């Protein structure tokens, strides 16, 4: 088990090793849902919530079920099943108890199952041998980092509606290049903490 403090992991996964800008996870929904700040914020919140819970849940299942039974090679299929089931459960729960939240968050929930940032966080925390608290911190930090990136990008894209982008670059191409510049800026945080 690695000895890094959960606080360091939390800060590091938001800034220095942002899950989107350095691990490239969750790009599909990042590109598809970053047109408006409101949408980006909604999706971001849902991702943060699901990521904390699935990180905790998956860690427990891996440590207390898969390792004692010696079936670590089934880890991928178990991880994705847990995520899919959890998202389904949250959707039903929210629909039943808070219709307002359901309408705000509802459409984003099914999108989350296929957001590779969620599965990526679960796979990475096992690869890096995190403990329970470290995994939860990583899930939280990863989610917040992802939300930060998508909200920033949505703000930029709203402004960009008024700019004259060369024709072949319109759409995804220019968004990619901006993301690249954003990643460079985030590299400036690299001196802050190391994991």
């Amino acid at each position, binding site marked *: 088990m690695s000895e890094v403090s959960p606080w360091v992991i939390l800060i590091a996964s938001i800034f220095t090793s942002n899950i989107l*800008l*350095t*691990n*490239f*996870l*969750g*790009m*599909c929904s990042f*590109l*598809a849902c970053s047109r408006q700040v409101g949408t980006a914020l909604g999706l971001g919140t849902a991702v943060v919530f699901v990521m904390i819970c699935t990180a905790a849940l998956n860690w427990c299942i891996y440590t207390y079920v898969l390792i004692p039974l010696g079936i670590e*090679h*089934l*880890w*991928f*299929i178990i*991880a*994705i*099943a847990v995520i*899919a089931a959890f998202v389904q459960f949250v959707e039903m729960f929210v629909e039943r108890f808070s219709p307002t939240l359901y309408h705000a968050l509802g459409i984003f929930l099914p999108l989350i199952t*296929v*957001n*590779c940032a969620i*599965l*990526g966080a679960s*796979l*990475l925390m096992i*690869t890096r041998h995190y403990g329970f608290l470290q995994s939860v911190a990583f899930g939280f930090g990863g989610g917040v980092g992802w939300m930060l990136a998508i909200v920033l990008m949505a703000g930029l*894209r709203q402004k*960009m*509606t008024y*700019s004259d*982008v*060369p*024709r*072949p*670059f*319109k*759409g*995804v*191409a*220019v*968004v*990619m*290049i901006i*993301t*690249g*510049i954003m*990643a*460079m800026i985030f*590299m400036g945080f690299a001196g802050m903490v190391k994991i």
Partner: protein
Amino acid sequence: MANSPAPIGGCGSGICCGKGKETFKAGVWVTNPIAIQILGICSALAVTTTLMNSLVMSIALTFVCVGSNLFVSLLRDVTPRRVRMIAEVAIIATFVIIFDLLLKAFYFEMSEQLGPYVGLIITNCIVMGRAEAFALQNPPVVSMLDGFANGIGYTIVLCSVGFFRELLGAGQLFGYTIMETVANKGWYPQNVVMILAPGAFITLGFLIALYNYMSGANDPDKETSP
């Protein structure tokens, strides 16, 4: 075979319903999974630091895509519509595990380098998208071809990104030195940013722009806001 609904073209004769060529062309170029549909970007960015990694990842994706398309297609008549997603994910995950175990057994170093990205093929939207959009409605052989074509389309983009990143970032191709770097008393000053994360985004951005330029996409009639 000829009775199944066909989204692309009409059903002709032969083992591929006479639409093998169209399917192949669509997967590789016309609706290229990365450049046009913008699917499966994560792995395209993450593993392309060297050409070799790009190639192995492409083989993995092509393998999973062909295999899962075959089985989704074979099971398409017995899968209830409501649980089809779970069924698809289970089939895809099975193939990913097979490939992961093969890689670990024969090329352990490569498996260490690719890290979690092999596992992430499960949520790679290309595989899921092809299973959902093509294999569910089409007979097995042509579905396999579709998976293969999309795999090739993915390979082309991934290897181009890997080519530029390894060449400009390390002066090497497949690990062989092409341009002697300054660090080794050569003439080429290494551009380290190409190996790091920003290089991936920028290379892919320019490649998509190049694709748009060549295929005449983004023409004024169907302009979209950036």
